[in-house]
């Protein structure tokens, strides 16, 4: 019998149309890019049994298994049950039938750097936050890219996301413990923004320059610098790649709590639902904000949020990027 496929349904189930007729590829979500090693063998077995025995590590830290015949989707979904149970259900995603595969594919895998479980620079457990967000946001059908990074080094490239979450800290200075060795001042000026300077043998911190990276805490040999308890974040928004207008995400909220970050992203999903142009196959969130204007976005996503003390919001937003229609800038180097 010929294949009679509801393309939209299979796409929503995380299978995609591929170049090879009648064959698909499944995308496996790994929130935070961290998983039990044993799940790899489950995923590998699927690739070997239903695909061509290969699998691709995606840019968003998931897996994609190519060359799966469309007709075997239900078998693949059944085989995926333990993976979805561990990576979605256990993280709080409500799924009616676990054996029926992924209930959505719009929101992309939430990626994260390795975070404070391993990395000395990280200010927070990025894996845990990615998993929390998975539980709160998945499934939804909107094409939203989220990534969490442990410090402003931004190894996960939060600057390329719709929501780039940067974990930061508030450094606290103990005047009496400081011996004026200048280790923090050197670290800050060499690696960061030069927010620290020496005054009378002690350290002065320019709060407007400090980005909360925590380098001073790492550098201090007397623990005169410590992190104020409680995780804080800088939320960058509306960065993107793409054919039209690639641009870097820029800071929208600063020194906000984890709860605020989660609430703002949840509000954004509702905002998208109200404003998205449904005549397009998928309108990306950044272009929706371009259309409604920042003020509408701001009003709607910040509505009803109880901000932590010290939270700050950007007055204006300017995204560095470019429109790809720039042929006028090119000149011929070689004719043929």
């Amino acid at each position, binding site marked *: 019998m010929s294949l009679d496929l509801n393309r939209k349904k299979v796409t929503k189930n995380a299978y995609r149309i591929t170049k090879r007729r009648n064959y698909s590829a499944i995308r496996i979500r790994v929130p935070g890019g961290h998983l039990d090693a044993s799940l790899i063998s489950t995923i590998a077995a699927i690739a070997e049994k239903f695909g061509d025995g290969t699998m691709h590590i995606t840019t968003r830290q998931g897996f994609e298994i190519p060359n799966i015949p469309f007709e075997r989707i239900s078998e693949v979904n059944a085989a995926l049950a333990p993976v979805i149970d561990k990576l979605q259900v256990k993280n709080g995603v409500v799924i009616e039938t676990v054996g029926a595969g992924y209930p959505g594919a719009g929101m992309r895998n939430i990626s994260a750097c390795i975070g*404070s479980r391993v990395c000395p620079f990280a200010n927070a457990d990025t894996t845990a936050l990615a998993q929390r967000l998975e539980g709160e946001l998945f499934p939804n059908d909107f094409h939203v890219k989220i990534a969490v990074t442990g410090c402003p080094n931004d190894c996960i490239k939060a600057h390329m996301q719709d929501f780039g979450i940067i974990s930061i*800290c508030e450094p606290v200075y103990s005047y*009496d413990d*400081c011996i004026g*060795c200048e*280790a923090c001042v050197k670290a800050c000026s060499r690696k960061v923004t030069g927010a620290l300077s020496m005054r*009378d*043998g002690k350290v002065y911190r320019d709060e407007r320059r400090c980005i909360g990276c925590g380098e001073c805490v790492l*550098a201090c040999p007397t623990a005169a610098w*410590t992190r104020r308890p409680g995780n804080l974040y800088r939320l960058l928004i509306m960065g993107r790649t793409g054919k039209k207008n690639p641009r870097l995400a820029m800071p929208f909220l600063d020194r906000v709590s984890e709860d605020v970050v989660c609430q703002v992203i949840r509000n954004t999903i509702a905002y998208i639902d109200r404003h998205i142009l449904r005549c397009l196959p998928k309108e990306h969130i950044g272009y929706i904000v371009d259309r409604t204007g920042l003020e509408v976005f701001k009003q709607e996503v910040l509505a009803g949020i109880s901000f932590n003390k010290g939270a700050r919001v950007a007055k204006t937003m300017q995204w560095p990027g470019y429109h790809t229609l720039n042929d006028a800038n090119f000149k011929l180097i070689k004719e043929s």
Partner: protein
Amino acid sequence: MSESFRLSAEQFAQLFEQLSTAYLLAGPKRIAGAGRFSGTDLVRYAFLKSADELELHEKSWFSPKELVFPPDETLFYFNGQQFTEATLPDDHEIIVFLRPCDINGIDRLDRMFLENAGVVDPYYKRRRERLHYFMIECRESFENCFCVSMQANRTSDYEVALRFEENSVQVEVCGQKFVDLFARAGEKAEFKPEFVSENPVRVELPTEETMPPEIFNDKFWDEYDSRCIACGRCNTSCVTCSCFTTTDLFYGDSRQCGERRRVWDGCHLDGFCDMAGGHTFRKDKGERMRFKTFHKIYDFRKRFGVDMCVGCGRCDDVCPEYISFSNCINKLSAKLKGGL
């Protein structure tokens, strides 16, 4: 003469409270989230509000030397005409809970600040005289401890020794000062503290009476040139490092009024041996390692008859570059044995 008692944990907590009315009590305390890496705690010496703040299961990152030799201390104030010595903020006596190695460590500081060349440092002395040692019995090593090799695992210099058990505390009280308090708080017992007699980490000290001069310029030290990053953590965490720098601080725009402070410095830190004119002794990190090593296990002994290092192992605990001082001593001894 000493008497011994057993107190229930509750009785001890009450006694602690009672002591708090007359003394400041200091000991290793866990400070949540204050560690160098996010989500980690810092154990350091601090004043304690209650007995349960005493951290007994982890070695403190910094030593109790801060009680007698603070990281930053104002010595006197001046105004162009005269100067006034700084007084201590209070005259409380301090009970400090500490382990035998640290008691021996403060003994090394005593030699430096009270006996060296016959000069008594008054700023040290007035803090030192306030201390009462409540020794935490230490029967097992922490990671990197090598107190036994340094013969700093034992001491009799304490007023009270304490063994913390599951639901009780056994104490030996020496002298008269605290005996009544403990006698009223608990019941009589037979208790003498034990001391750790073996560490997993052992060091073999050089046996040379006089170091062969060639070792000072030997290639042995070169590896530390590239390994050490001069962060100074080995100095700041060390109970026996006693170096400081003095600095004058002027108030506002004044060129007359200000104060003189002494602030911790250390041989591994940049600037430690900068001279007027820009000359620097021990520019290379390997030279700094050599200087520290010989001071800790050779020079100090020549002057005071005892090694400076007490083998607490904190320098090994805290080095971000995994430079191990105990390994350095052993490698040095092997090198000297093998002939240069």
